[in-house]
């Protein structure tokens, strides 16, 4: 045989988008919320972010190394996980906790199930729930240092959502502050504005489709309105918007419910998933005993993803369309 050339199956061209670049875009989209968090809570918050990201990357590298697997640090997913863990922590957390959380997220939730793409729940959220159950005190201690620039809720000294739960909307923490983010809470969840800027980045670069977050936030809003009307409170815009902007809803809906690996791949499944999360969050926050509900709603939703996919398989082209 004479000279031969390179062959492969079609197609012979590839899109420029890579896993790496997608993860980098998510990290970039999280930056506004991270920066507001650091501005809001001071240097201590920066330290938590740094420790979480670095420990996630190290655990990822270490696991690959010990298990003699190809190094997957370069895909940037560990950085995103680390960032999300940090944004879900109060700024005053003891620093060993995010390290423990990172180990749990990367090694137990992600790598033991086969690494990127195989984990059945969002690693960062699993870590948050794990820490929440183990160290509820530290995880819900939102006491802030002197550097804090936000509005402190004098009534309770707790997060706006907890106050909302206890007293209803009193206007103590105005909706505007909840939107801008200078209130108490975890590092990354306080500023709806910063998170929405990040969401815009995700949408503009087509990293995510709006299906899950829009259905999530939309159904939660509807649930809240129904709740207000059904319990005789009457429609209260302040209550509604503090529910939407307060707590982890924006962070969860835009950045964690949309995690590719743990959300349905089917377009209709994404709608079902979003609505399901909205209703579940409503039940947890408004009817259940806790003020927060986003993390648990998403984790439970993650577990139902295979089932949701099975019931929302798309109809193949030509199998349901209009016949002549």
């Amino acid at each position, binding site marked *: *045989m*004479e*000279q*031969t*050339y*390179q*062959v*492969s*199956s*079609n*197609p*012979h*061209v*590839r*899109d420029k*988008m*890579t*896993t790496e*670049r*997608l993860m980098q875009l998510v990290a970039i989209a999280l930056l506004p919320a991270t920066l507001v968090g650091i501005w809001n809570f001071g240097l201590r918050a920066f330290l938590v972010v740094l420790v979480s990201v670095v420990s996630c990357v190290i655990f990822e590298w270490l696991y690959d190394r010990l298990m003699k697997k190809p190094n*997957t640090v370069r*895909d940037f*997913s560990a950085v995103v996980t680390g960032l999300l863990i940090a944004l879900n922590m109060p700024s005053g957390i003891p620093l060993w906790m995010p390290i423990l959380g990172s180990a749990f997220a990367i090694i137990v939730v992600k790598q033991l199930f086969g*690494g*990127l*793409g*195989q984990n059945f729940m969002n690693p960062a959220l699993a870590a948050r729930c794990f820490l929440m159950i183990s160290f509820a005190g530290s995880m819900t201690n939102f006491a802030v240092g002197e550097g804090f620039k936000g509005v402190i809720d004098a009534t309770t000294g707790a997060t706006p959502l907890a106050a909302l739960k206890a007293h209803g909307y009193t206007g103590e923490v105005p909706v505007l502050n909840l939107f801008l983010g200078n209130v108490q809470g975890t590092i990354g969840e306080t500023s709806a504005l910063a998170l929405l800027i990040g969401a815009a980045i995700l949408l503009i670069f087509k990293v995510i*489709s709006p299906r899950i977050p829009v259905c999530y936030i939309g159904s939660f809003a509807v649930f809240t309105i129904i709740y207000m009307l059904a319990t005789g409170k009457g429609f209260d815009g302040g209550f509604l918007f503090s529910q939407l902007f307060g707590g982890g809803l924006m962070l969860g809906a835009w950045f964690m419910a949309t995690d*590719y*690996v743990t*959300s349905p*791949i*089917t*377009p209709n499944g*994404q709608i079902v998933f979003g609505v399901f999360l909205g209703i579940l969050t409503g039940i947890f926050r408004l009817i259940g005993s806790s003020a927060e509900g986003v993390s648990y709603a998403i984790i439970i939703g993650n577990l139902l993803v295979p089932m949701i996919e099975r019931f929302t*398989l*798309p*109809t*193949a*082209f*030509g*199998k*349901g*369309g*209009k*016949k*002549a």
Partner: protein
Amino acid sequence: MALLTFKGGLHPFEGKELTKDLPVEVYMPTGDMVYPLSQHIGAPAVPCVAKGDTVLRGQKIADAGGFVSAPIHASCSGKVKAIEMRLVPTGSMVNSIVIENDGEYNEVEYQGADLESLDKKTILERIQAGGVVGMGGAGFPTHVKLAPKEPDKIEYVLLNGAECEPYLTSDYKRMLEKPEKLVAGLQVILKLFDNAVGCICIENNKPDCIAKMQALVKDLPRIEVKELLTKYPQGGERNLIKAVTGREINSTMLPADVGCVVDNVDTVIAIEEAVLEGRPLMTKLITLTGDGMARPHNVETPTGTDVQELIESQGGLKEGFSKLIAGGPMMGFAMYNTHVPCVKTTSSFLAFMEDPVSQTTPTACINCGRCVGACPSHILPARVATFAEHGDQAMFEKYDGMECCECGCCSYVCPAKRPLTQSIKSMRKMVLASRRKK
């Protein structure tokens, strides 16, 4: 007019500017000509010449081997040198007639005809005699396609001028340079279907073709021009039918099941030549393109031309090129050797200096769903490919893996660079083979 389109698909880099404004050249080869007996779907043709016979250009050298088959004609004059196995562009060995080209190109006489004087049966006979096959890629014998069970139920004759594959411009050049032939060919087809309208379907990245065609058909009541949104794979038969008529066919149906007949630009021109001029299918317009081609342009060459000879005569390949593809970048075949003939379905040769596929390493699927959004068959390529990789035929079929049209969109968009199309394609072949066994 709203642009017609379908759901799914994508916009790859077009690459058409490399060749679209350059004049078409004509090449008359001098080397041996090779005519594989299978240049179409169906039974191979049966040689009607023997070694040592002298043939003229336009002379039939092989008869159709059955109803679903097509005859083959010499495209040069000379002497039959051998009938032997030869390599074809798709990589297999096919029994072929080899003719020693005398370079004279002495032709037989062709019997032209007037459309008015032809009845339907004669039109189909002339198409068959001309060896016309679908040149969009599949090579389905055209006289079979144009003879559905119920011709009265055909409502649309779609002339596929989408040319959605990146880099390819041969249909574009044809539409610009031979629009009258195209319209005449379409009228021939319309004569077969009394209840049909003819639609010339062109993507909106070719506004000059659209304008030219519109001017040409404005007084013809049965023909209209349809403007399509530029999107790959708009030129796929199923997607074209969907975009223009809103009707859908799946993998087990034919266009005729929804009242449509689809023919591509080259085929319609071949129909015109076969029916009205009596000339059989003997030449192909081929796009030579890509950054590895020294002089990208369109060239008209006889079928049977050795690809190596053709490319060398047209400027050759650049030093250090790494990949040569027969067809477009999305659905073409990579060739390991250029000593193959141009056949009826050859449309282009694309040379890449760098092969983007071998430069990437597939990593884990991150379930991002980009393949789902791009799939024009509306299946879940990521899932279906996994079933294929696991050899799980039951799940593969349950998740409609057989509906895949092998367009390559899923592999193209995959950020993890997984060869989804490849996995699905090979599983489809296995399923089809196992079905045939039953």
